[in-house]
């Protein structure tokens, strides 16, 4: 039987996208935790171009990038499906996945990127505004019609692409002492977050909140002190 290995890091929502896809489809895999400040030679060999996680290795062949890996998984193991079969619905799903990717860079937890928990003042204000715009677009355009998930009744790759909003955003807000997402302002998004986190596979596979909060708080203090 072909072996599936997944290289990732416990803080990364991009890593979790792949975990969720594999688990929802019941695919056994071996997880290899990477220290992002000290990447293994094996990871660098499998992803020489970007040197990033996640990387899926199937039967010895590497597949890189958190949007490409789930599509590969979907094509090799089609059931249960995580993308619509209709080409137009699929194009809409891909649109929202791309939107998530474009906007969620700010929530990526590599030390040099997250402007919200490290910066203060003008940079932080800009970042907050950017996140708010993203949330408004999701609320006004993505979740119209009172859908349970972005694709309708079933969880799909689009929901998983927005996973960072459902779980990681809250931790970053706490660590940075910010309140960006207010449930009463985003009722559809609030419902979606609850629906998403209630899916058993998602519930059981979320990064440890307390551990991450402690890490972010430490990072923020270090960065603010060094200015």
């Amino acid at each position, binding site marked *: 039987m072909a072996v599936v290995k997944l290289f990732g890091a416990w803080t990364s929502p991009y890593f979790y996208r792949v975990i969720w896809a594999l688990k929802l489809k019941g695919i056994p895999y071996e997880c290899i935790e990477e220290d992002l400040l000290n990447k293994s030679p094996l990871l660098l060999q499998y992803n020489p171009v970007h040197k990033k996680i996640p990387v899926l290795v199937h039967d010895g*062949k590497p*597949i890189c990038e958190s949007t*490409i890996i789930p599509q*590969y998984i979907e094509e090799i193991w089609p059931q249960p499906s995580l993308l619509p079969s209709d*080409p*137009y619905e699929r194009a809409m799903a891909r649109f929202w996945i*791309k939107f998530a990717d474009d906007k969620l860079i700010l929530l990526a937890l590599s030390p040099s990127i997250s402007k919200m928990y490290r910066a203060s003042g003008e940079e932080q204000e800009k970042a907050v505004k950017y996140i708010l715009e993203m949330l408004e677009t999701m609320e006004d355009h993505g979740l119209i019609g009172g859908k349970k998930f972005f694709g309708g009744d079933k969880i799909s790759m689009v929901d998983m692409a927005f996973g960072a909003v459902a779980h990681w955003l809250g931790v970053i807000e706490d660590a940075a002492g910010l309140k960006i997402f207010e449930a009463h302002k985003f009722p559809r998004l609030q419902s979606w977050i609850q629906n998403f986190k209630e899916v058993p596979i998602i519930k059981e596979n979320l990064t440890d909140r307390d551990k991450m909060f402690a890490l972010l708080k430490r990072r923020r203090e270090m960065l603010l002190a060094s200015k």
Partner: protein
Amino acid sequence: MGEVNIVKLHGIGANPYSKRVEPALRIKGIPYEFIEEDLSNKSQLLLKSNPVYKKIPVLVHNEQPVVDSLIILEYIDETWKNAPQLLPDDPLERAKVRFWTSFIQQQLFEAMTRVVTCDGEIQAKAIDEVQGKMKVLEEGMKEVFPGSGSPSIDGDNLGLLDIMICSTFSPYKAYEEALGVKILDPERNPLVFCWVKALNELPLVKELYPPHDKLVALLKVVRENALRVSSST
């Protein structure tokens, strides 16, 4: 059969993103109407079709809009399953094509845009970046096309990577003349250089691209506008 397919493409003639979609429609033999948009005065139809980004190209198929050039290309491939196929059948090969497509778009194209729209140190850095990434692309393509070391170009059988390479590098001579910058070097990037030359010979490509002088003029205008905007902010 007998299904009606009304296809409209909202775009801008010289825009590289629009230039990705047209070849796909043509090689699959899909009749379409091209609607030239004016970015300073976007049509109501465009704004309605793409409320989130308000950008071109937008493909409208039987009144349903699809946005983003790469998403449009996959949509075309999945809806019109006749040959040629833009993406290979094998999932691992598809992942490779998507990977390099993403690389060309996010790494190369973005850096090339900075070469066109910036000057001074920012431009110099961008040029270095482009040259470094071209090297990576060259190595990557050797892996995607092993053995012969170059893709065989068949005008009736273009794929997604051919389209990406074409829309990004086809006007390389115009870049050289307008900017005095060598994007594509036959010595440093022999595989990609030969590939682009072969693509530029195709009647379809010659038809879709404005003549060299017009491209040079267009690039100069884009650059002047960008520099003027950045110096006034």
